[in-house]
């Protein structure tokens, strides 16, 4: 588009032809009041607040829907503009209640701000004000619909961004109401953003209701660590407590949205289950002690079990993948300094010889620009909401999306094809795709593909990939327990190379990219997690591990860790019975937002953050605990003044490439295949303790889905439980496959 010149309030401004006027004024810092306009939503032009005077136009024009043209002369502040804005304001305030003192939006309300500038101090409206009945729309959003000014931002957000139109306007004129269409309220995984877009106090945060006024809090920039995106957020704190989380604009990561998991998980921080004081187990009984006593006890335990016998290889370290980059680095450094390579964070993987090795070589923002995507084994919307949103944007602008899943999931956009394939056939299907790609490129077919029959589905998937210029293959989380996981990853790699596609590996979760970056994996001669547990090591250092959620086989893990001659040092942020059972020392550590550190997202972007609040009571940031532990062990090279020095050290160390198995096995395995996955709001310890998240429909997902034939084979019915999870019989699941979304781990039964 051509550059043109327009005149705003007498100043010449350069702009692109066809841009909306409000975009130009926003860029130039000229204030134009608005309610319905939002930079990320479509233009509705229904609030009429942004009326400005355009020379030559008979009436004032709404800035949000007036495309600019060369030579246009605009007045935003002259009498005509001001008079029309004032008139609109008066109409908007007719039905708006004067309850600012009890409104949670008070102090950060767009209507309040604009009314200060454009409102009149006396109302000419003497008739009765309109009152709208509220409906309960869920555990996260509080409604006060009398305050609604019908800007329809929430409606447009639902339809355009969340992808589910849950809110809508019904009725006309005086009777118009914004309300959810269904009784069950708002179920979207991005619903909290409606609170942010609402310009008035009609939609506010339910957990935060009536707690504080906006001016009482300090906002600290932070990074949400619940998924592979690392959304930018503001943690709003008051008297040393996190009271609310709102989205922070970061165009390259989360645009201006965040998921509900990022927004509401903070509630867990003040849960009564927080571990607040160091404890040691003496003769089977827990005692609360001072830090120095606990650390002494830990050192003596390590000395007795490991160092005195000169058996450093009897020490293991395990960490959950929510730890920060610095914590991973310090823990692996301690282990390597004392001479042990038994380090691992991949606790939920059944067979680590079968580890997935797939690079992500696409930027998050780049996902919007793809013209085709192949998603393999993922319920994207619930697992990685922000990545799903990017892909949805691509889809809306024309990209096609193919899916290979073991079960039909809700995608909030139209799929090109949804292929329900049991997990044990995934490798074979992908092999078919590869073969088809190679055939059409008339390339040599490697031997392992010789027996593969290319199905129609495979041909179609292959053609789509070959035909697109900018395609991406997304590997989701469901693959981790697939017996052919490494083959699947290798096949994807091959296909991507042959079709010039990019890849996105979403099979890990939380901060596991940071774990890999800091080499928190077994080195040469080291044992992986399953080998450690099988070898019954004499001592462990565990970082925020909760066995019944984190381990693939929690029963075996607890059993192995509970051995009488095993000394376990647990650094935990929350109390947990299983942890108490096997640990000898419990060291309370800071949770999310209470420690400084770094998150590494799926594209490899390192985002550092500082602590928003101090950890409660005696809890300390884990990186400090690990540093002190290292000092007490008299290890060299642990002189850090703050966590940023650790970050610098990690970034400067050489990153070893992992050697991985490149063999590909495409044989179809027999038997029932189980995909075991944590429920979306049970992925980490903080969200598990967030009461409001757990009260949502997504938070209560706990089901083992299978089709009728599988149920018959397993001899279960709708009322039974399968491996402790309620059975749901649904024909949307592939044959011979059970898809489990659970809030606990398998317990070793699969």
């Amino acid at each position, binding site marked *: 588009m051509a550059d043109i010149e327009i005149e705003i309030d007498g100043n010449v401004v350069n702009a692109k032809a066809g841009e909306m006027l409000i975009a130009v004024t926003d860029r130039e810092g000229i204030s134009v009041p608005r309610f319905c306009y939002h930079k990320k939503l479509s233009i509705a032009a229904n609030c009429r607040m942004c009326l400005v005077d355009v020379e030559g136009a008979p009436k004032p024009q709404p800035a949000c829907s007036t495309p600019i043209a060369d030579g246009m002369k605009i007045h935003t502040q002259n009498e005509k503009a001001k008079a029309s804005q004032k008139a609109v304001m008066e109409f908007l305030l007719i039905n708006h209640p004067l309850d*600012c*003192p*009890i409104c949670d939006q*008070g102090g950060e309300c767009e209507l309040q701000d604009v009314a200060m500038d454009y409102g009149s101090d006396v109302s000419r409206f003497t008739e009765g004000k309109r009152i709208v009945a509220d409906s309960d729309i869920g555990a996260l959003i509080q409604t006060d619909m009398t305050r609604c000014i019908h800007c329809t931002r929430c409606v447009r957000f639902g339809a355009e961004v969340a992808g589910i139109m849950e809110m809508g306007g019904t009725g006309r004129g005086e009777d118009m109401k914004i309300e959810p269409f269904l009784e069950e309220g708002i179920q979207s995984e991005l619903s909290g953003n409606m609170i942010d877009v609402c310009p008035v106090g009609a939609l506010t945060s339910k957990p935060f*209701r*009536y*707690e*504080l*006024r906006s*001016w*009482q809090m300090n906002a600290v920039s932070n990074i949400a660590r619940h998924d592979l995106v690392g959304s930018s957020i503001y943690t709003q704190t008051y008297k040393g407590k996190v009271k609310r989380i709102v989205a922070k604009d970061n165009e390259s990561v989360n645009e201006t949205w965040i998921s509900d998991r990022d927004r509401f998980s903070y509630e867990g921080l003040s849960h009564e289950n927080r571990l607040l004081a160091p404890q040691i187990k003496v003769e089977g009984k827990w005692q609360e002690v001072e830090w120095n006593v606990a650390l002494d006890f830990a050192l003596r335990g390590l000395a007795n079990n490991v160092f005195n016998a000169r058996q450093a290889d009897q020490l293991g370290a395990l960490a959950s993948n929510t730890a920060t980059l610095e914590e991973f680095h310090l823990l692996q450094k301690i282990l390597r300094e004392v001479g042990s390579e038994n380090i691992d964070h991949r606790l939920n993987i059944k067979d680590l010889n079968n580890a997935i090795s797939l690079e992500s070589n696409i930027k998050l923002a780049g996902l919007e620009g793809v013209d085709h995507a192949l998603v393999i084994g993922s319920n994207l919307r619930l697992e990685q909401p922000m990545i799903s949103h990017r892909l949805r944007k691509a889809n809306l602008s024309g990209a096609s999306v193919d899916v290979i899943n073991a079960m039909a999931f809700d995608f909030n956009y139209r799929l090109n094809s949804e292929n329900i394939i049991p997990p044990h056939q995934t490798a074979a299907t992908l092999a078919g795709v590869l073969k088809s790609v190679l055939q059409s490129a008339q390339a040599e077919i490697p031997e392992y593909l010789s027996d593969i029959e290319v199905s129609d589905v495979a041909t179609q998937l292959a053609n789509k990939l070959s035909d697109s210029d900018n395609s991406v293959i997304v590997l989701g989380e469901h693959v981790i327990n697939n017996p052919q996981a490494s083959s699947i990853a290798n096949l994807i790699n091959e296909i991507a190379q042959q079709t010039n596609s990019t890849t996105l590996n979403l099979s890990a979760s939380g901060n596991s990219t940071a774990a890999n970056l800091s080499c928190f994996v077994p080195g040469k001669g080291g044992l992986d997690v399953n080998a450690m547990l099988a070898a019954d090591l004499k001592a462990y250092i565990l970082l925020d591990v909760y066995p019944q959620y984190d381990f693939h086989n929690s029963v075996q893990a607890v059993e192995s860790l509970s051995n009488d001659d095993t000394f376990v040092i647990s650094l935990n942020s929350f109390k947990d019975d299983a942890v108490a059972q096997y640990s000898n020392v419990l060291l309370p550590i800071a949770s999310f937002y209470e420690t400084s550190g770094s998150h590494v997202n799926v594209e490899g972007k390192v985002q550092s953050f500082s602590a928003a609040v101090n950890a409660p009571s005696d809890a300390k940031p884990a990186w400090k605990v690990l540093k002190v532990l290292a000092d007490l062990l008299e290890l060299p090279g642990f002189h850090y003044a703050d966590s940023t020095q650790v970050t610098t050290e990690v970034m400067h160390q050489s990153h070893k490439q992992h050697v991985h198995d490149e063999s590909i096995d495409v044989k179809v395995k027999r038997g029932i295949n189980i995909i075991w996955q944590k429920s979306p709001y049970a992925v980490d310890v903080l969200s598990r303790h967030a009461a409001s998240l757990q009260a949502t429909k997504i938070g209560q997902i706990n089901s083992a889905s299978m089709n009728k034939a599988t149920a018959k084979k397993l001899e279960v019915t709708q009322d039974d439980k399968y491996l402790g999870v309620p059975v749901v019989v649904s024909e949307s699941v592939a044959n011979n496959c059970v898809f489990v979304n659970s809030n606990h781990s398998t317990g070793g039964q699969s």
Partner: protein
Amino acid sequence: MINNIKKLVKDFSLSELRGGMKITAKELINKKITVQYPEERTPISPRFRGLHALRRYPNGEERCIACKLCEAVCPANAITIESEARDDGTRRTTQYDIDLFKCIFCGFCEEACPVDAIVETQIFDYAFVDSREGSIIDKAHLLEVGDKNEKVINQTKLEDAKYR
């Protein structure tokens, strides 16, 4: 010289003493103006800003809605409020403390209050019995002051209303 003589005469004739005695004699007969505090009190303006009180509506419901505007406007940061949604869903304070050592009795809290909950009464003769902690008056105390003096508060506010 002449001045010295004049002074000498004045001193010896006790004229100043007589002048003083004259006033004493006059005041002996005049009406007394001494106020026998605390039995008697001087009149106080309805705008007088003394000890704070929290008021209730006639039906017994506390007026304060925890909007925290008084807390925000207080130039001395003397007010501390914590709030929650009460069981019936209304917005209420769980804590309302005023530190009278910090308070400068400017009356901004009263001006800011949208529901006339916090007021400054005409009470000025309160005392802190137990040092620092005693200077912080809590919600129960403030409501008690309000309950005891509601009649007077109502009267003074009415008197002042026409000038606002």
